[in-house]
């Protein structure tokens, strides 16, 4: 049952992404003759559609490398890793890893991290909605219990770590960004990406902060997370990091015992 249709679509699909394959037989123009030109319309539509989807999701990357280079890079990725879902807003999860080993781009060592920031931005944009804790909510916590605090993180929150000044480079290449010269060998930058309301926010994380957030996200207490941050950066500044995260809307609830959560005000 439907074997012919299956075989037919298999050969059609294979030739769509592999331009070295011949046009499948029986695909004809109005004269009844095989028409490669007509088949190539579908080839172009598929590849151009995927390039456009990537361009929409990675605008800063496109601006950094230029349109022509981006198209070539996006085409190579689309052919090698076509989407597995019709939800194209979600296309490009593997783009950073692909670009990291894409020969013509290896000299742009910071590029994969810029792509990771843009990917985190897209994920945050479409993530589940939730109401962030207001700073005033934390004022109610008794001082003697602060050490045991555990936080529920906002579902849109992502952390991107980079050995390069990726946040600075990203920021210069978004709409309204002002290009200036950047020493790509200057200190690495980590970013927290979160969307507490309508707008996605990308903030620089102070030293040790990425480790700290990751520990909180895994359910560790404030004390445990602080200890972990200090193993990475001895001068880790807890109050600066905590204030930044609260201002960013990174938390949606808190509790004390493991797995417990108070003050959680989620809107879904």
């Amino acid at each position, binding site marked *: *049952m*439907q074997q*012919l*249709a*299956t075989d*037919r*679509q*298999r050969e*059609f*699909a294979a030739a*769509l*992404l592999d331009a070295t394959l011949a046009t499948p*037989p*029986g*695909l*004809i*123009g*109005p*004269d*009844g003759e095989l*028409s*490669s*030109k*007509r*088949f190539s*319309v*579908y080839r172009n*539509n*598929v590849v151009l*559609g*995927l390039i*456009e*989807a990537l361009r929409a999701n990675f605008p800063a990357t496109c601006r950094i490398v230029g349109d022509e280079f981006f198209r070539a890079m996006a085409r190579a990725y689309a052919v090698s890793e*076509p*989407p*597995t*879902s*019709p*939800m*194209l*807003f*979600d296309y490009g999860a593997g783009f950073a890893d692909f670009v990291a080993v894409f020969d013509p781009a290896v000299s742009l060592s910071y590029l994969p991290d810029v792509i990771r920031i843009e990917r985190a931005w897209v994920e*945050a*944009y*479409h*993530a*589940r*909605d939730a*109401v*962030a804790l207001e700073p005033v909510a934390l004022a109610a916590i008794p001082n003697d219990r602060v050490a045991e605090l555990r936080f529920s993180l906002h*579902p*849109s929150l992502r952390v991107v770590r980079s050995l390069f000044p990726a946040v600075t480079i990203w920021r210069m290449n978004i709409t309204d960004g002002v290009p200036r010269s950047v020493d790509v060998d200057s200190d690495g930058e980590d970013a927290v990406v979160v*969307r*507490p*309301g*309508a707008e996605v926010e990308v903030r620089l994380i102070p030293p040790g902060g990425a480790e700290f957030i990751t520990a909180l996200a895994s359910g560790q207490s404030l004390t445990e997370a602080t200890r972990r941050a200090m193993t990475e950066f001895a001068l880790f500044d807890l109050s600066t990091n905590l204030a930044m995260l609260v201002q960013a809307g990174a938390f949606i609830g808190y509790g004390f015992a493991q797995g417990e959560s108070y003050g959680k005000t989620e*809107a*879904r």
Partner: protein
Amino acid sequence: MTLALESVALDTRLQAILSRAGVGLKAEHYRTIVATRPDIGFFEVHAENYMGAGGPPHRYLTEIRNHYPLSLHGVGLSIGAARPLDRDHLRRLKQLIERYQPGLFSEHLAWSTHDTRFFDDLLPVPYTSETLALVTDHIDEVQDTLGRQMLLENPSTYLAFAESTYSEIDFIVETVRRTGCGLLLDVNNVYVSSTNQRWDPIRYLDEYPLAHVQEIHLAGYTREADEAGRPLLIDTHDRPVDEHVWSLFEHAIGRVGPKPTLIEWDTKVPTWPELKAEADRAEATMVAVGKRERHRAAIGY
């Protein structure tokens, strides 16, 4: 900072889509629409763009849905695929329909998935008994799962299959007869396919099962040529509706009367006034044709 999501009861008077003109909703126009509340018949969205868990797309669509009728247009269900429908995708569609209660739901006579891959295009099917059987099964499953009728859209095609044994229209007629689905008549696709396949577009419309048409699409195309220098039109949705297509639309409306008519403009998205002007023209055409037909009837023409 409250996101008013899912909390507002929909105004049921905005359920049915009247025989007016609408436009495809683009993110570029969200703010203008919310701020100015333009007079337009309805909005249509691509279902796949609203399958994320949350965020601004849902926020704006909720706001807009509260003031306008909505049509939901799927582009990724792959009804023509020689494999079972993606149940997860169907479930997501069902959730969207429950949440936004669109007046119409449509999908394409095409396929776009194979194995685990999604091809971002509407790929053609041969018109054979085998394809008819699988398309029929899939439409039955969609309508059973969603608990409502779907509209099937006629495709833009760039080539033909040597093995086809049905004409496109006979294939569509038989699909409607077997499944009870309705039709979305894309007049631009009629023009594009007719040019590419050397059919007469007026004859196509006259033979089309127009009684089942519940919505019309209009869009712009790009002109290219095949290896023999014959015109090869591409359904690009990146420019105004062509004059030939407007004429065909007038002909179609003369036959079926006014229908919910959508302007599709998906790439190189124009300013809101440009897009709105296309919808205004579609609506003016429906009014003019209506008057002409009533006049004809009055004088017994």
